[in-house]
């Protein structure tokens, strides 16, 4: 698992606050036993009409193809815990999302698959969004080590939960290996804790 210290690329602005995970990936695309092909379904109902014709959506514009940084508003990723949402964003080629705030579960899910989510204060975010709109060829750089977002010669301080930043820059964003190190201790806890339909464990705690 690689350390993720910087992400750099062209950007696209997805305007609006409270963009929920049903909008990011409509539920009918969850009817699958793998995450394959989710990238194409990203924001499907906002990008295409019911006949499948493309609508005017930032992700459909030719100059935004190949963007790897998404700029969003406040409360991004609210609602469902479906990891399909960050998976779809990642599989569509995005490596980082910059917003005003993120819903809790979405943020955790994204971080665990190495999709960087950082926040800027609303004023800086507004300046960034305007700059991205005006500069489709311009690159935005998210620097987790320097804790800043850089674009067009400007620098804005970014915020991210420290545990997530630490996990990303140290290459430990997928915690499974670290979780498994404690397996003996976990087995002890399992043996002593009560469980559903399991006998024992309550007396020691009472």
């Amino acid at each position: 698992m690689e350390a993720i210290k910087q992400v750099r690329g062209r950007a696209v602005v997805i305007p609006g606050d409270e963009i929920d995970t049903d909008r990011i990936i409509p539920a009918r695309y969850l009817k699958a036993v793998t995450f394959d092909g989710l990238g194409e379904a990203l924001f499907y109902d906002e990008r295409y009409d019911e006949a499948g014709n493309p609508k005017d959506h930032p992700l459909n514009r030719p100059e935004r193809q190949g963007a790897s940084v998404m700029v969003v508003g406040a409360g991004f990723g609210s609602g469902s815990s479906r990891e399909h949402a960050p998976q779809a964003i990642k599989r569509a080629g995005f490596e980082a999302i910059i917003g005003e705030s993120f819903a809790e579960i979405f943020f955790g899910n994204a971080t665990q698959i190495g999709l960087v989510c950082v926040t800027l204060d609303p004023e800086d975010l507004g300046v960034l969004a305007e700059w991205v709109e005006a500069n489709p060829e311009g690159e935005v750089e998210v620097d987790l080590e320097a804790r800043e977002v850089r674009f067009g010669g400007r620098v804005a301080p970014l915020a991210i939960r420290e545990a997530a930043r630490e996990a990303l820059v140290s290459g430990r964003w997928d915690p499974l290996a670290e979780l498994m190190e404690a397996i003996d201790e976990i087995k002890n806890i399992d043996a002593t804790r009560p469980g559903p339909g399991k006998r024992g464990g309550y007396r020691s705690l009472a």
Partner: protein
Amino acid sequence: MAGRSLYQKVWDTHEVRRLASGQSQLFIDLHLIHEVTSPQAFGMLRELGLKVAMPHRTFATVDHIVPTDARDEPFADPLAQAMIEELRKNTREHGIELFDVGSGRQGIVHVVGPEQGLTQPGFTIVCGDSHTSTHGAFGAIAFGIGTTQVRDVLATQTVAMPRLKVRRINVNGELKPGVSAKDVILHIIRTLGVKGGQGYAYEYGGAVIDNMTMEERMTVCNMSIEGGARIGYVNPDETTFAFLKGRPYAPAEDEWEEAVAHWRSLASDPDAEYDDVVEIDGSQIAPYVTWGINPGQAISIEENVPDPAKVPAEEAALVEEALDYMKLRPGQPIKGQKIDVAFIGSCTNGRLSDLRQAARVVQAVGDKVAAGVRALVVPGSEQVARQAEAEGLDKVFRDAGFEWRYAGCSMCLAMNPDKLVGDEISISSSNRNFKGRQGSPQGRTLLASPAMVAAAALAGEVVDVREILGVEA
């Protein structure tokens, strides 16, 4: 030393260790899985050559994709059939108990856990579903996780999680007649905002919560996530213990007293310190209806839909977007809004008491579903369906023109054939009014309590259930 909240006590006893990132490695007492968010996790395990570490702590059911009009297999939708087959295969291969269709125990995962007694006070509970917060009603620390975390729990019975702050929400006083638990949580979300709970676990208390039944507490905790809080819970009390006693997976008779003593000790101390405390006056809550595209966009039945010109500037864009999508007029009353579909069900309001309340309204009115309205009642589980049928509730609904269905998530998220068509507008006892949520990209949703949904189904428009029941506002 200051007292501790239940959240702190449960966290401390379940923290295996701190990870290098600073997150907690948290032991999970109960893991619930369903067909939509688990197959990829089993796939990852297979790729890594790992086994399920503690299959006795994972339980499965099938809820999201099951058709509710007929149970014959193969299902009409081959993708749905493939998903149920995959869950059967995975649970068989790893020795996990599955409450399958027709077992008598199948249902929405958050209805099944409590009714089987799997959900217990002091447990850490996770599921790949954001409404896992429901189980917090029992004084459990329960939260939704993503599929990669489902993999982590299957492989290690632990997850990496940041410790949250705790906000105590006191709902004081007494609810007025005709006001339900759904109205309480919609009022809380509207008051604190859909992002208000980010970074917090919500602890609900106060006289209104104390006096609630377990099913009502589940409705409140269920929608914590709609207020941005990943976790919501109520301290365990006599109501909790009475609900659990004798359930299949609850502690056995000879262990019961020890279990209860333990559970009592977990409740927040009287002098517990909270990161924030909010006081809500329960007597001021009226029946609620949402008018917009997130659950915080809710008003009482007496209010009018907001006018973007009259709201604070920073809210105007979202209000405008919502009204445009919902095709509602600024300033119009919500009362009298015509509806096309009425849906009673979901993990929020698909339990026996919800169906009883809806049936009571149907009986009080003594009328049929309004012409042109499609009305569905989808019980939350096979057990709920059985109990409702034993009481004759199915007959009350059917006679009035409602469809009586099999158990599942159904039109809450429309992963099965139950969907809105075109820009139909539904009144729904579920939890989300997001754009396209109920299966049509233009479909519109008004969230309300089961009683309000039943009343609207009969009237063909949004009405004040208190007028129908003859109670004073």
